[in-house]
């Protein structure tokens, strides 16, 4: 059991974080908390990619004279890092857009509590 935790602690942590994010999105009734849950889910996925690039004992993917190009196992995989740069941008955009929509909703209804919002929409 301890060994399992030692081997996979990163994945266990990420699974926990993912669950927290989904919980926030689904159960919380305040729209800002929903948006934050969404951001946590996105951050989890980004970190999952970063973990997938990790190798035991390897360094950053920059050319090092001590290892040369003959030992690729001495460098971690650079591809996930490059791709997650794009995913981070996407995450920022969606989070910003969600906050913009929250502002629009607040100006219209003067509340961010979901049941209240649904209540106010009934009479249209």
């Amino acid at each position, binding site marked *: 059991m301890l060994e399992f935790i030692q081997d996979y602690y990163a994945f266990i942590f990420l699974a926990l974080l993912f669950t927290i994010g*989904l919980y926030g*999105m689904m159960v919380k009734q305040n*729209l800002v908390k*929903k*948006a934050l*849950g*969404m951001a946590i*889910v*996105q951050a*989890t*996925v980004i970190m*999952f*990619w970063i973990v*997938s690039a990790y190798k035991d004992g390897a360094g950053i993917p920059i050319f090092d004279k001590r290892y040369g190009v003959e030992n690729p196992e001495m460098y971690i995989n650079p591809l*996930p890092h490059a*791709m997650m740069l*794009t*995913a981070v941008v*996407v995450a920022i*955009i*969606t989070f910003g*857009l*969600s906050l913009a*929509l*929250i502002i*629009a*909703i607040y100006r*219209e*209804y003067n509340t961010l509590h979901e049941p209240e*919002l649904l209540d106010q*929409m009934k009479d*249209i």
Partner: protein
Amino acid sequence: MITQNIPILVPVIYLIAAAAVPLLGYKRTLFAFCTALFGSAAAFCVGIIGLISVITNGPISYHISGWMPPIGIELVLDPLSAFIIVVISGSTLMVMMYSMNSLAQEIPDKIVPFYSLSMLFLFGLSGMTVTGDLFNFFVFLEISAVAGYGLLAIGDRRAPFFAFRYLTLGTAAAAFYLLGVAFIFMSTGTLNIADIAQVLPEVKDHPPVIIALILIILSISIKMGLFPVHQWLPDTYTSASSTATALIAPIGTKVAAYFLIRIFTLYEYPPIIDILSIVAAASIIAGSLLAIVQPNLKRMLAYSSVANIGYIMLGITLATPMAYIGALLHILNHTMMKFVLFASAGGIMNNMKTLDITKLIGFPTVMPLTAVAFLIALFSMVGIPPTVGFFSKIYLLLGAIEAQEWFYVAAIVLSSLLALVYLFRFISIAFFRPYNKSDDKKIVQVDGPPLPYTDLSENNTNKHFEAMKKNDMSPSMLFPVLLVAVGILIFGIFNGYIVSIISKSMPVF
């Protein structure tokens, strides 16, 4: 020379148009309209050229900035993606023709952002169609989704809230997709779809690959609006402006369906296929049942979208040649009829000032030509012979019989009957005068003075109808609607040509 560059040309045309619209439309909105119309017309022409050259010369592969496929990003135009490109760009061209007057009537102060966002939306969709790289697909998915959130947030008072709900759900779906791709990347070490197809048999039926498949299918189901995760679809479509609905409803969910075909050609895991078939059948029946009880015309059409995406899904999961032809023909059919229906619904909203089905009595008197187009599209939805809808359903039925899945045969037939119920409920209210029961007219009273009797129904019908002025949609809105309505009939009669194009793209079953 140009044929080699077609895969990248279609998205780039849309991207340039998206950037040019705010620049040219800064002073006059007419220029924004012209730019968007010209851009979508150019993309449509390029798509047609691509389809013809792909059918004659085989698939075209484009390598972005010259990096070779397994390392660089590859864009592929094969018969399947070329067909989808033609469908989505053609639908967009029609919407852009339709949009000028309807936008001026509905959201006059947001015309330029609308055009820019719609071009960006199409950039994402066409990129999703041509890309041959899983991570690149995610980027295009998010581009189209972000533009779509913006488009759907422009509308009535409720639109921002429903757009927010769709945003959280859609972003979670994209996160699921990215997680699934991470699992595939960890077990195969590549992101190129063709390369994965070569490596994947080595790690077949390993848990990470199956989990990846489940996550990707879950995210695409959310984007498609399948039954258990469909709620965003009717909400956003009802509250958004009718031009945005006419743009997004016909094509937004189809590209996700197309990507599902791509995923299944990559890797199939039989238990998931079985579950998906059941979900598709549930989607067909639940969508049709929920459509029956909707009071709002646009909401009813949105629920029928849920049912129709179920047909496409069922055709994909049955995995027989006939069902595959039916699914792709239904993509074309559904795009055309949903454009006609939602565009007419926008015209109805502008001219009759309501979308409540019970208040649309006499709508054909006011808008006769729209009513004709609407009726043709309804016939196509039910599946009445000369329309495309009949042929797509008959192919689906034949496919289900071919696979010997009698439960799905029953589901398709049953939901066609349910479609008859919810569409003819609208027809019987809108197209016919209220039925007067002759027995109720005179109440026999034995004693006392007779009660003053006024024939309310008489007032409501004949004089009411005569008082209604003919007030059809403006010609620029009417023309694309009628064109597509005629197209539904023509494509139905000459469906053999389309089937021959589709069968070129068929994977091996």
